[in-house]
């Protein structure tokens, strides 16, 4: 079984300071991991994905995440926060095809990022 835990429901940072959003996962297999961002009244947009190639993954808008198997973590970081980064972020784990033949993914409960001017 797979599961995802986002350790903080809310994170507040000042503009220009680093961002750290934490995600731990559990999986019986070698999973793929994704981070999505959701702006108000919008759908989820893919930020980056880990698929067992490089453990440090770079995404859009200056975000990156590091896959640490020993810690079962996939934390999202950004060196300097912008006001436009204020949104909700979701960590997602995928083990692949579920018993019903579809791609089984599990979503974290989300972290709301507030950026203070």
């Amino acid at each position, binding site marked *: 079984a797979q599961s*995802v835990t986002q350790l903080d429901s809310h994170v507040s940072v000042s503009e220009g300071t680093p961002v750290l959003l934490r995600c731990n996962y559990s999986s019986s*297999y070698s*999973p*793929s991991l*994704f981070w*999505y961002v959701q702006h108000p*009244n*919008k*759908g*989820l*947009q*893919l930020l980056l*994905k880990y*698929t*067992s190639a490089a453990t440090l993954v770079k995404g859009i808008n200056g975000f990156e995440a590091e896959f640490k198997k020993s810690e079962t973590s996939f934390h999202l970081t950004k060196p300097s926060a912008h006001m436009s980064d204020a949104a909700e972020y*979701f960590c997602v784990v*995928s*083990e*692949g*095809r579920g018993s*019903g*033949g*579809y*791609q089984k*993914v*599990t*979503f*974290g*409960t*989300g972290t709301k990022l507030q950026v203070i001017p």
Partner: protein
Amino acid sequence: DAGITQSPRHKVTETGTPVTLRCHQTENHRYMYWYRQDPGHGLRLIHYSYGVKDTDKGEVSDGYSVSRSKTEDFLLTLESATSSQTSVYFCAISEWAIRNQPQHFGDGTRLSIL
């Protein structure tokens, strides 16, 4: 951005009425999914489709039905809406059902049932 259109974007209706939400894609992807998003729960899978007329249940399928008569359209129906179905509904698509395949999402339908 993936070509996914959900309609309507907002709907308010009364308990006991039928409701149909539509998802339309222009990517010709095989897999389509309906999720609901509720505070504290992330996104939960309602139903999915792996081809025309091929659908199956997800983890929260009670009270919902789906249909897919064309590759591009996936309909979600609440036969008799209840207040517990007030939520934001997202459609997603993917080309393959493999672990490294990201899903792409529409902008959602906000449904309120009074």
